[in-house]
């Protein structure tokens, strides 16, 4: 993906260059960090990990909220509404389940 976008950069004629480059740095660093952090999670916690990352990626909520609220006509608002609903389902559901699971893990009886 990185490379792909990088190539596209060259074909780009807009001024959004610097912003995209910054975004690319963030992406690359996040990728490394993701690898480092996730690969340290023990198998014991792989199921909670799934629901946790799932909840976290519900952050796309922030995008949906703006669209739902910016009143760019009915269509946009409804699309936004659905997006907000879906995303927040993941956020709430994901975190609730993760907490529930983690509470179950005990060292001693």
């Amino acid at each position, binding site marked *: 993906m990185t490379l*792909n976008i990088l190539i596209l950069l060259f074909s780009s004629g*807009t001024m*959004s260059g610097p912003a995209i480059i910054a975004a690319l740095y963030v992406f690359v660093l*996040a*990728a490394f960090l993701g690898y480092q952090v996730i690969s*340290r999670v023990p198998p014991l916690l792989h199921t909670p990990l799934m629901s946790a990352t799932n909840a976290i*990626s519900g952050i796309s909520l922030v995008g949906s909220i703006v669209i739902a609220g910016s009143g760019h006509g009915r*269509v946009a608002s409804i*699309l936004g509404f659905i997006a907000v609903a879906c995303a927040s389902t993941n956020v709430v559901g994901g975190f609730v389940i993760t907490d*529930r699971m983690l509470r179950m893990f005990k060292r001693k009886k």
Partner: protein
Amino acid sequence: MHWQTYFIEFSYLLASVLFILGLKGMSHPETAKKGMHMAEFGMLMAIIGTLMHFEIVSYTWIIAGLLVGSTLGAAMGVWVPMTAMPQRTALSHAFGAFAAALVGIAEYYSYTHGIKPIADLSHVTMSALGFEIMLGSLTTTGSLIAFGKLQGIVPGQPLVYRGQNIFNMSLLAVMIGLFVYLIFVPTAVIPFYAMLGLAFVFGVLLVMPIGSADMPVVMSLLNSYAGLAAAATGFVLGNKVLIIAGTLDGFSGFILSILMCRAMNRSITNVLFGAFGSASTATAQGEQGTMREVGMEDVAVQLAYASKVVFVPGYGLATAQAQHAVRELANVLEQRGVTVKYGIHPVAGRMPGHMNVLLAEANVPYSQLYELEQINPDLASTDVAVVIGANDVVNPDARDNPGSPIAGMPIIEVDRAKSVIVLKRGQGKGFSGLENPLFFKPVTGMLYGDAKDTLTKLVGAVQHA
């Protein structure tokens, strides 16, 4: 920039940091809870920040969406049983990806309907948008099919026909073609919606040919797609916390799918296009001797007077919901001074960590859960190894028979134990559809019946032994 903008940016930066810390916490069960609370707080901050966004003119739709979503999420969170985690995860990926796709569509819509200056729809933005929408859409439908297969709504066995892969590939090619075209002609509306439609269709076609037992791998892959879709959204909106969270999500999905494949000793491509577990591969090699059936009492006595017992749970434990029963049995045995351990294969059950969660739910302390590498050396000195609804993960063929389809897959070597008891309902095969020589070894005794009933009966029997 107004002060709100700074506040929002600050809340996003904070959220990013807290998300990372949260996932770092996942490296140990002790720190995991605190980590999650950080992540939750981060999420809260990000949402509060967003609500201050100057573009927002009305909150009705937002609040409505939040209410619907939260109630739905809370309900799922509270009521979904641990055994249904795989389905639930698949469904949530569908939601996440769908949200990302919708955001993308709305963005494109607002560009093409003069709400935002079409000039701002640069090649770069369009390419990010395209990624977001393609990944989002195909992940949505793909995850829904995965959900259906895991839930049993959609037929589990792979749906295959000749020329399938070629067909799918060409479809993919068309989709990519449209995508590339759009990058250069962002305003081409029809190609856009065509691409969108194809993406939805492709998601279905991608998952249908894959057997339900392979769903976990597919799920994790879709997970990483969902994450990347979110990251792409971040590129479109120039929102860094989205990029970070999406990338982290994407990587966890990717890494988990790799781990699973490695534990099954198979390649991702084989999983995706091998149509594993389809009738073709499921040719049982017929009996290789006779199975020795053992009686309840006999087993009870063996367990009661053993000094070391290892339970090896598998998918059957999940379907039978036998986690509490096994825990009871363990308690009884421990009261009699028997050392009890659990040997957990990385791909036992139907998702990574599946068994760990189920046993944790039944209050099994995780200090008793041993990974494959840790338990195997122990087994030689084990008196009784009890295989509870596991099959492939204890199939000696993977170790001994290079010809076997699962040859090379690491297994829990229960056949090294002094005695092996296998709890299963009958002659049923594992997900791989292979015969399991373990069941024919003299050391092995078969105890038929639903795992839960059997275990509950065993508790009583052991108490009277």
